[in-house]
């Protein structure tokens, strides 16, 4: 992968370049306190873009897989019915997307486009999306209490699936790494210059150092959790303990960069017009699994909770999507009122397996 060096002062010129190519650019901005969010870059807010900041809770996956999106318009006209699909393929870029969220988008790619059926709505948006990843290097601002990308193997610097990756080398310099030909094409801009071996060594040193700044308690026992979930070894009691703490708000899903579930609903938008929309859905909600006839195979909360963790950790899904559906961003841990975000659940599973492992050999 080709790399170039640029001055810190020139980093936002990448945003300008993309905007000059008629690209809608979304970038992270700071709010009050911990609040941060992605927003569309305009001439007014361009200078306020933040490179180092806590990752916004509302994940940037929505620029490819919108929270709510019209699929088609159904109109009554001349005694007939007219159905017209609504395709949107805006040229877009996400500037400053974190490595965990890049992994999340890769997971969505596998889900929506990885097999026989390709989701045309997703595909159209995705093929016009340019990702500028920023590696997390500032322990004070980039890396939060809940971050565990090192455990999920997605960060702090993504290894693939971005178009361009930026890393703050300190001393007023950034390194840009191209992940695709489109990313490399940007290197023709005059503010990029060739790097030296020293730059590469510095990058390596920073990454080695940053890995140590993650909170040790966020180290998840993913491997054990995956093994036990995949083998169906988790006891009912553990799922019930987890379910009892779920308030069924769906928050974990709405902040998750790797959740793919959606529901489809028709709604009237005019006297003779109906639109079909798809909306993010959450397995925490009772209506998620309820059948039309009234039966709900996962009526109890804990049955729906274990569904979430099966989907995220089970070997079956990992094999299918080529990555587990958890990227270690820690958002679920930050928003869950019942403290059953991924790290806590993995910990509960680990404790349970520790119980099971207590079997003593019989000396007879």
């Amino acid at each position, binding site marked *: 992968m080709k790399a170039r060096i640029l001055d810190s002062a020139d980093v936002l010129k990448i945003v300008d370049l993309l905007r000059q190519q008629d690209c809608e650019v979304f970038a992270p901005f700071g709010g*009050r306190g911990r609040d941060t969010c992605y927003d569309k870059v305009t001439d007014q807010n361009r200078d306020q873009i933040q490179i180092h900041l806590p990752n916004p809770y509302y994940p940037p996956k929505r620029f490819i897989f919108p929270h709510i999106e019209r699929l088609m318009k159904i109109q009554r006209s001349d005694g007939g019915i007219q159905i017209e699909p609504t395709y949107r393929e805006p040229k877009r870029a996400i500037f400053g997307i974190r490595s965990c969220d890049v992994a999340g988008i890769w997971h969505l790619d596998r889900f929506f486009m990885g097999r026989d059926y390709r989701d045309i709505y997703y595909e159209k948006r995705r093929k016009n999306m340019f990702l500028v990843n920023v590696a997390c290097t500032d322990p004070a601002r980039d890396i939060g209490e809940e971050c565990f990308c090192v455990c999920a193997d997605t960060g702090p610097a993504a290894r693939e699936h971005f178009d361009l990756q930026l890393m703050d080398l300190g001393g007023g310099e950034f390194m840009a790494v191209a992940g695709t030909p489109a990313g490399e094409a940007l290197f023709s801009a005059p503010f990029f210059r060739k790097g030296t071996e020293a730059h590469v060594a510095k990058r390596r040193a920073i990454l080695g150092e940053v890995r140590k700044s993650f909170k040790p308690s966020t180290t998840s026992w993913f491997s054990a959790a995956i093994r036990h979930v995949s083998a169906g070894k988790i006891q009912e009691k553990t799922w019930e303990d987890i379910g009892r703490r779920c308030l069924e708000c769906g928050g974990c899903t709405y902040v998750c960069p790797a959740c793919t579930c959606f*529901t489809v*609903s028709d709604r009237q938008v005019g006297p003779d017009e109906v639109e079909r929309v798809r909306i993010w859905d959450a397995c925490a909600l009772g*209506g998620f699994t309820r059948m039309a006839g009234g039966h709900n195979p996962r009526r109890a909360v804990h049955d729906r909770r274990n569904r979430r963790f099966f989907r995220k950790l089970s070997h079956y899904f990992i094999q299918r999507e080529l990555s587990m559906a958890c990227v270690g961003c820690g958002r679920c841990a930050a928003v869950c009122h019942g403290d059953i975000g991924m790290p806590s659940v993995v910990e509960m599973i680990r404790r349970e397996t520790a119980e099971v492992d207590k079997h003593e050999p019989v000396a007879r």
Partner: protein
Amino acid sequence: MKALWLCRYDPVNTAFFGDAANSLKQFDLVVVQHLFMTGTAQFAHVVLPSSAFGEEEVSFTSSDRRIQLARQAIESPPGPIPAWEQIARVGRAMGADWSYKTAADVMDELGEVVPFYSGASHDNLAREYGRQWPCTKDRPLGTQFLFADGSGGRRFKFVPVPKPALEVSPKDFPFTLVFGHSLYYWNQNILIQHSETLKREYRILLLDYPDGFVEINTADAKALGIRDGEKIRLRAASGSAVAAARVTPEVRGGTIFVPFFVREVQKQILGRAHSGHQIMPVRVEKETT
């Protein structure tokens, strides 16, 4: 009282006790400021459509005494204007000298009149997630805990509340009726009716329990031979009501939980002379039809 002005308040759907709908009918003039045609707005003589959250700069005070500033993020659709501006315009039309230019001006005046808001200017509020009152000029950061220094005679004083004597024998009425919020309170909330996902949940609730439900513990239901969705009769000293049972381990044994939105149950069982006590002993009977 002849006239009532309600600012973003929907008592018909949200006031748990009393009969707001009937009371509203008795007024000569009801003015409602809201985003939507709420249950209350149906009774209004004048409805003033106001801006939504995110369409105006405005402050909120929540029940932990936190005053927060919400910034404008998008423009209102043509028509609705901020609620404070509607009030100011009506005031001016009636001859008052209300020349506020922004919500910040209104807040400044609030600070002059309400001593413990004197430091809560928009400038100050904008610096953090919010300030908890008392937020005064000399304590601009607000007050996290009231009476934290433990001084003065203004601390909370806890006094024992006499337990109301049971008018009935617990033998005859072994269950306790509890009224409260429900996860399924959704159909009463106008904002949730505008959320596609939650609307789905609401529709499902109505499919499962078309007439609402009361919740009974799984073990209690088993002992009484009650199955989920079955009609049960709740009999209290003051009245009785029939409702569908939602059998769930989520409620404690010995209690029947009545979500606030099941208004009929509430009315019938409390009878005419209800005292407003939220706990009452009942007996559960299988309803045979």
